């Protein structure tokens, strides 16, 4: 738990980061703010000048020269224009600075998301990661909006204090008390409000996580009639956020008027003491007026310091959460080796073990090799470790023990991107980008349309893609929600095929496709649509039959291997697994 003083210190540290990162814009907007402040004081001076040089002589003499009148207009309007320039510089500068900092962090955070290993992703809930890149970044730089004004105010305060001291030492000292009292009150306010702000920020994250999750599962929510329960789950947090905000608001309501009243009370005290001193002949009335006036002028802007400090708790929490992502390490290490550019690849899995969490091994001592152009089927019951093995072969994760080699090179020795050039995987659940059909197949690679269509044809996706309103240029929407599960799988398959991989990994890639279409896909694959070495995770015999060899997995180990026909004869467990449909047919 952070203490209020550390919040204050860390808050300034965050500002320091911001200023170091955007020194130019900060300078411009602060100069704008100082200009604005100086000209606010100048306004009073212009009024005084107009009184002395225009109003008083005019009323005294009964006439006035046009040039004086023009000077009055010129001075007032000129000061106003300069002040407008100051405002624009300050506000636009603050905005530009804030948005640049936000954009910078969002780019950095998403780069981390792309750089960090899958293990890291598996440890962090989706909602939290989305909140880190959005709400937390926003919170971290929230004090930037009031920053230039606050700095300008500090400058104004320094000038005002100097003027006060020039006018009268005793009164200035009394007046000076106003500033520390305002600052102390503000700090007390921070102490009281800080935990609530932190809590509110965390609740906002939770709220956004629940909304995201709930809307992702909207169809299930509907079909199970969970709308009311989901709303209650969301409402409970929304209500807590409301209560925390209300409590924070009450604290603010109590402190705001105090901070506003202190300068006014200061003026009254200055006046009381001032009159006494004037009567005693210690000071001139004009000096009392000056000090009173300066206090009044600074009273309002001084609150901007409060606004700035008020953003600190939220900012510090957001900044810490963003920093945690940026500081995360464990980035996958790459070597410098390359792979041949063409021809089927060989694959060797050497005594590989893997566990998502210690003590619960998912794969134990997996050992097999595959000659170029050959194929292997991974067959096993649900949750036997097949999909995990595919993630190891595509190096989404590294094995805890053992090694995986493609063309004799340990995957860990390959340079970045090298493996993806050789290996393509079609995962169990297809993920589509918010992009066109073409973009989803080529993933930005420069591929002629003919090749895209050829890949779609092999994946039996050409028919429905041709029927889409804009063909290859049809936007598929977020995660391809406009397509059915089977259609998404086929686009995902075409994505793998179009890259002409040297090793193709199919992880139950046609589970959502109906048998006839699946048969056509398998036929095309068998008939030379790919020359790749093939690893397939499969349940159906037609798919298994694609493979030269079968690895039977159970509980994360290879329990048997060999051609399908041999396995089915010698292994009752294997036969039970793959013959389940037929057994069923016989039973029926």
């Amino acid at each position: 738990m952070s203490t209020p003083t550390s919040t204050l210190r860390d808050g300034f540290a965050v500002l320091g980061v911001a200023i170091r990162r955007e020194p130019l814009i900060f300078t411009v907007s602060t100069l704008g703010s100082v200009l604005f402040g100086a000209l606010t004081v100048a306004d009073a001076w212009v009024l005084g000048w107009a009184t002395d040089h225009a109003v008083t002589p005019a009323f005294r003499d009964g006439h006035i020269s046009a040039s004086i009148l023009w000077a009055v207009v010129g001075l007032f309007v000129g000061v106003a224009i300069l002040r407008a320039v100051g405002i624009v510089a300050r506000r636009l500068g603050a905005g530009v600075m804030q948005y640049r900092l936000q954009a910078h962090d969002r780019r950095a955070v998403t780069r981390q998301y792309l750089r960090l290993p899958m293990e890291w992703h598996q440890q962090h809930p989706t909602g939290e990661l989305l909140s880190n890149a959005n709400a937390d970044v926003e919170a971290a730089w929230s004090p930037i909006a009031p920053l230039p004004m606050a700095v300008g105010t500090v400058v104004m305060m320094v000038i005002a204090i100097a003027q006060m001291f020039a006018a009268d030492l005793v009164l200035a000292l009394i007046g000076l008390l106003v500033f520390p009292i305002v600052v102390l009150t503000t700090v007390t306010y921070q102490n009281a409000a800080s935990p609530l702000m932190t809590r509110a920020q965390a609740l906002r994250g939770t709220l956004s996580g629940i909304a995201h999750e709930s809307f992702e599962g909207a169809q299930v929510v509907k079909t199970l009639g969970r709308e009311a329960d989901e709303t209650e789950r969301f409402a409970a947090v929304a209500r807590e956020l409301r209560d925390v905000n209300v409590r924070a608001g009450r604290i603010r309501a109590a402190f705001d008027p105090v901070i506003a009243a202190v300068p006014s009370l200061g003026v009254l005290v200055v006046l009381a003491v001032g009159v006494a001193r004037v009567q005693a002949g210690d000071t001139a009335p004009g000096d009392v007026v000056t000090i009173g006036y300066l206090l009044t002028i600074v009273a309002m802007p001084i609150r901007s310091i409060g606004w700035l400090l008020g953003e600190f708790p939220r900012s510090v929490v957001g900044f810490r959460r963003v920093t945690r992502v940026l500081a995360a390490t464990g980035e996958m290490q790459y070597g410098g080796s390359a792979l041949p550019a063409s021809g089927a690849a060989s694959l060797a899995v050497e005594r590989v073990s893997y566990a998502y969490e210690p003590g619960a091994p998912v794969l134990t001592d997996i050992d097999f090799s595959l000659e170029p152009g050959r194929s292997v089927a991974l067959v096993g019951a649900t949750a036997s470790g097949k999909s995990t093995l595919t993630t190891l072969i595509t190096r989404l994760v590294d094995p805890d023990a053992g090694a995986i080699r493609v063309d004799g090179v340990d995957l860990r020795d390959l340079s970045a991107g090298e493996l993806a050039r050789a290996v393509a995987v079609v995962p169990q659940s297809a993920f589509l980008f918010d992009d066109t059909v073409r973009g989803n197949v080529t993933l930005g690679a420069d591929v002629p349309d003919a090749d895209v269509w050829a890949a779609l044809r092999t994946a039996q996706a050409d028919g429905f893609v041709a029927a889409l309103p804009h063909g290859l240029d049809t936007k598929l929407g977020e995660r391809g929600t406009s397509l059915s599960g089977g259609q998404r799988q086929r686009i995902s398959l075409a994505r793998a095929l179009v890259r002409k991989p040297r090793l193709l990994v199919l992880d139950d890639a046609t589970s959502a496709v109906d048998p006839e279409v699946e048969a056509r896909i398998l036929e095309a694959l068998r008939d030379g649509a790919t020359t790749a070495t093939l690893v397939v995770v499969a349940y159906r015999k037609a798919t298994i039959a694609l493979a030269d060899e079968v690895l039977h997995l159970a509980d994360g180990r290879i329990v048997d291997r060999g051609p399908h026909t041999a396995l089915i004869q010698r292994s009752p467990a294997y036969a039970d697994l793959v013959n389940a449909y037929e057994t069923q047919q016989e039973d029926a």
Partner: protein
Amino acid sequence: MSTTVTAPEPVVGTGAEISAMATIRRGMQISPELRQGLGVTLLLALVATIGQVVVPITVQKTIDHGLGPQGADIGYMVRMGVLAAVAILATGLASYAMTSRLFTQAERGLATLRIKAFRHVHDLPLLTQNTERRGALVSRVTSDVDQVSQFLVFGGIFAIVSVGQITVATVIMLFYSWQLCLVVWICFAPLFLSLKWFQQRLSDAYGIVRAQVGVMLGAIAEPVVGAAVIRAYAVQDRTQARIDEAIATNQAAATKAQGFTAFSFSLGGLSGGLANAGVIVIGIWLGFAGVLSAGEVIAFAFLVTLFVGPVQMGTQVLTDAQNALAGWRRVIGVLETPAELVDPGADGEVLPRGPIDVEFRDVSFGYPGGPLVLQDIDLHVEAGTRVAVVGETGSGKSTLAKLLTRLMDPTSGSVLLDGVDVRRVANASLRRSVVLVPQEGFLIDETLRANAQWGRAGATDEEILASADELGISDWLDTLPRGLDTRVGQRGEAMSAGERQLVALLRAHLADPDLLVLDEATSAVDPQLEMRMARALEQLMSGRTSVTIAHRLTTAENADEVVVVDHGRIVQRGPHAVLVTRPGPYADLHASWVAQQAH
């Protein structure tokens, strides 16, 4: 399939067409808390405002009398000093009460708005939900509402105080000199008149900003949700480029809006300068005419500052308000989007418990703007029978399931459950009696227990384990290191597609429906488990009506009746044993299925 439905695509409203006043009016209706006790709050605001004007004036008077050339009038100064102190105290108390009331009202009102909008998103038809990015829907109930909240509690205070101060200052100015007051107002007229134009520009600019935030959230979600694919295909750079573009667009939109804000805010100061000059010049002229004294002109010049300050503050509030209004509109836009599949609620029919009799009567369906995907469907499923629906991908099978579970309503014709049109069945009763198990089991980032309890709220561990046992998946449960306490993760990180389907079936079993609709519900589990579950599902189906969408024909073999769908029409129906012997689509499907198994 030539018939095209021309109905507009249902989209989630953006509220862009709602005017500012209408937004506030609608907002107040949706969140009545905002209006409750508003009168008292305004009264407190008036007190606070008057106090804020009284304090400088009393200070001014004290200075005039206490430090004038004629010497200090101590008695007068004490009176004024006490008055000022009382004013400061009253202002402080009033402002405390006002602010804390505003916070309470605003936060209560917005919590209500948030919750209503969240609920409404779930009440929207599936088709409408799918037209909007999930990230954008999330931003409607989170950051859009936060914008309104920020404005109401901070902007709201300043708006009220500013209007109050402008009024008070105008009254005082009129009291001193109506002519100079007129001068001031004329100097500010261009500002007030151009305000509307600025509001429009700002409103557009902030509307774009809010929309861009949604797009950016969608882009940011890709490296998180698609983490595996992006790595497997090494498309980090491309993904990053797309994200960078969304971030840059968002940044540009925000900067543009901020530019407008800064410019419009600076206009207040410019008008103030003009007004000051005007007062001095016209004041001198009026002095020559003998209307005003020098002292009155100077005093008036001070009064102008009382006017300029709040006008500037007011302009700023108005510009900030555009951002908030843009957010408010988008939330209201959600609420104004019709929940087409209207729940008849309390007036709705309640389905009796027990197996349900299903009838499709002349049903056609087409997605908005698209061709019909189902045509002339007439189908009667007697209570307690098991029907399998087969057909090629894209034949309309899943659409049939969605109509049956009322995720969508037919374009024409009607779906009847126990003889009652589903549109007349109370939603609560429909969801109680009819359960759909979709192909992609959706899990929440909670424990397995919490996920199973989606099927039956408050189900005990014993009940869940008993269900798992009946489904024949207890040994799978036993392999999980933490059993029911296993956290499954939103993206199902810890679960394979097959395991997710097991959880979905567990839910359905716990839900104990009268009509069970399975849409490829076991496509990702291994055949042995699938067969074991098929037997368990048969147990589950007995005593209920069931409609199973399947592409593995074992399901069809065990069903009482098979319905073959092709190109949106029912082309064959009958028991498996009969259909398989007749030449036709089913025999073809079955032949290719058998061929696949034969290897």
